């Protein structure tokens, strides 16, 4: 009797212990996403027997934590990563190339927005799979701008009309300390910001100069107020009071606008893709943001890690994740027939996401971007001419890229 019981117990143990001893993945999620992803994972464990330990890291400390973990040889197996960080983590060789894993996988490039996918590709190799996406579009008041502008000329005409109605107010809010507005206009105008090799600045390129001039003129003509985002008390209040009729921002503000604008504003605002310099280029290029899932080179469980990425990339999980976070799903299929498709304000994002491009994929770019913001502000506040600003940007970018040029030259010599 006793023997039989022991035997049964052992049998039971054998059955249950198989999946638990098999795998125990470490996953680092960032901010709110890291918090809610745990709700998706029981399903994954049930299906594959792989258990996932989620470590949640605040966005503000994430970049340092991930780098320090890499230096200290304590990286997780899988992590969420802002897609603009991928070039940097690839430069230190922290990330596993994913191309070999992609061959017989449910993850397929054609299900993704090309510009977003491109942010994960460095020197022809894939290092991340888009998890959710983010870009900027134009939010505008429909009572002041009946027709959404498609070209820069129409955009200027719309601004002129707003100024005619409200001479003491403004047409558009472009916070002077943000680099996004200048870069968006430059990218829409075809500027590449750096040269193709990413070794020198390309800010003196006529396409960039023209875009910066266009940007500066918006302030000079009084269409945009000379205010940094710390000087704007509340974006929502300003928009509701028609302090400005347009604002370039991202998907998170769709929910915030619904929540924070007064009831009287309901139905009086809409979103539209970015205007383009020329009608043929509509919509204008916007930036490819969002987060990707990556596998660290140091991981001993890359197959299991890839299974987790495949799982989180399934349309069904992408839709659940959207419902939990309101982050726009990366998988294109989820955009038709789900809750994402039902929100009219998200249509502009759907359209815009087909026309997004990554920022230059070099690790130094985050620092160069802060210089773009600084010089943009100097131009707007009249401390620099456009010509001076672009010359100075090229000088700063070249100096920040000195080491990169040396490293690339050294690799070529070998």
């Amino acid at each position: 009797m006793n023997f039989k019981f022991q035997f049964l117990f052992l049998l039971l143990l054998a059955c249950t212990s198989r999946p638990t001893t098999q795998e125990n993945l470490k996953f680092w999620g960032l901010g709110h996403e890291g918090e809610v992803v745990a709700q998706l994972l029981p399903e994954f464990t049930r299906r594959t027997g792989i258990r996932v330990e989620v470590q949640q890291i605040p966005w503000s400390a994430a970049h340092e934590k991930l780098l320090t973990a890499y230096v200290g040889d304590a990286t997780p197996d899988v992590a969420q990563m802002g897609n603009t960080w991928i070039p940097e983590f690839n430069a230190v060789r922290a990330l596993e190339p994913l191309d070999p894993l992609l061959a017989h996988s449910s993850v397929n490039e054609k299900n993704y927005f090309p510009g977003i996918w491109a942010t994960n590709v460095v020197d022809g190799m894939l290092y991340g799979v888009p998890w959710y996406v983010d870009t900027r579009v134009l939010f505008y008041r429909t009572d002041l701008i009946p027709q959404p502008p498609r070209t820069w000329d129409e955009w200027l005409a719309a601004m002129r009309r707003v100024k005619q109605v409200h001479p003491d107010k403004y047409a558009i809010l472009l916070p002077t300390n943000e680099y996004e507005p200048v870069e968006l206009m430059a990218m829409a105008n075809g500027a590449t910001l750096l040269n193709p090799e990413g070794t020198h600045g390309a800010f003196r390129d006529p396409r960039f100069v023209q875009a910066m001039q266009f940007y500066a003129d918006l302030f000079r003509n009084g269409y945009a107020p000379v205010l940094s985002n710390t000087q704007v008390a509340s974006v929502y209040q300003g928009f509701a009071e028609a302090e400005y009729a347009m604002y370039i921002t991202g998907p998170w503000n769709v929910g915030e606008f619904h929540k924070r604008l007064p009831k009287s504003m309901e139905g009086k605002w809409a979103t539209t893709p970015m205007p383009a310099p020329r009608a043929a280029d509509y919509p204008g290029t916007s930036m490819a943001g969002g987060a990707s899932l990556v596998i660290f080179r140091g991981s001993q469980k890359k197959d299991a890690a890839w299974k987790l990425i495949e799982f989180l990339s399934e349309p069904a999980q992408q839709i659940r994740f959207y419902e939990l976070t309101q982050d726009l799903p990366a998988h294109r299929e989820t955009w038709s027939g789900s809750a994402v498709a039902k929100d009219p304000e998200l249509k502009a994002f759907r359209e815009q996401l087909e026309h997004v491009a990554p920022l230059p994929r070099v690790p130094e770019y985050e620092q160069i971007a802060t210089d773009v913001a600084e010089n943009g502000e100097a131009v707007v506040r009249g401390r620099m001419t456009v010509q001076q600003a672009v010359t100075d940007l090229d000088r700063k970018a070249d100096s920040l890229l000195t080491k990169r040029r040396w490293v690339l030259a050294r690799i070529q010599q070998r």
Partner: protein
Amino acid sequence: MNERRAAILFIAPALAVILLFFLIPAGASLLLSITDFDIYALADVRNIRLVGLQNYTNLLRDPLFWKALLNTVYYAGVGGPLTVVVALAMALLVNSKTAKWKPLFRTIYFAPVVTTIVGVAVVWKYLYHPRFGLLNRFLGLLHIPAIDWLGDPRFAMPAIILLAVWKNFGYNMMIFIAALQSIPEELYEAARIDGASAIQQFRHVTLPMLSPTFVFVGIITAIGFLQLFPEPYVMTGGGPVNATLSVVMLMYEQGFKFWRMGYAASVAFMLFLVIGFVTLIQLRAQKARP
């Protein structure tokens, strides 16, 4: 001879600790500051180059460094003396003969010193909240419009100074109390017989007797204040518009955010020079006095 050997034996453990945890790391970071150790060095150690004093020359040309240095000097220059003055005032009050419950007040005023700065900073962040903060509620009662303490570049640093003074004065107060108690009572008696008022007693007896304490307190406070870091790290992240970016914060950002370790090490040594310079001035100023 034997005595000397014993002496060396006694100080050896302390010396070993200083060597291992201070001198060697300091030497290593001095070496680091003449290399261009950066993110590329993580990929391949052969990507490190000796660059001599280039980090330092770049630093001196970096407007952000000057901004950080100016912020730090502003913080230490206003906050340091204010802490000393408040500490002395509190010490006089707590030490006064008419005061009751002395140990209780000493404990209350010393409590902020032993609380963790991160916890305190989080609480103060709530006090400073532009809409729901207690501070603006009080200002509202006085019909002063709400101030965005940590969001307005003009008020962010004063807000941090206020917190730092509250957090730090207790330590100096304890030192002042000890010094006040060591002033012989006969001096005050003699002064009173000569007809000195309370203010005259303070100026001509208390202050001169405290002067060695002032040097100590001044130097310790200056060193502490020049290393401003946790307050802005927790409360403002160095913003708004770099208004609270300190030298240590700049070093942290260059080192751990951008992984420019060589550059960050040169920031550390510049700060070391600044602190050394300030300390030297204080010592000189003291010696110059008769």
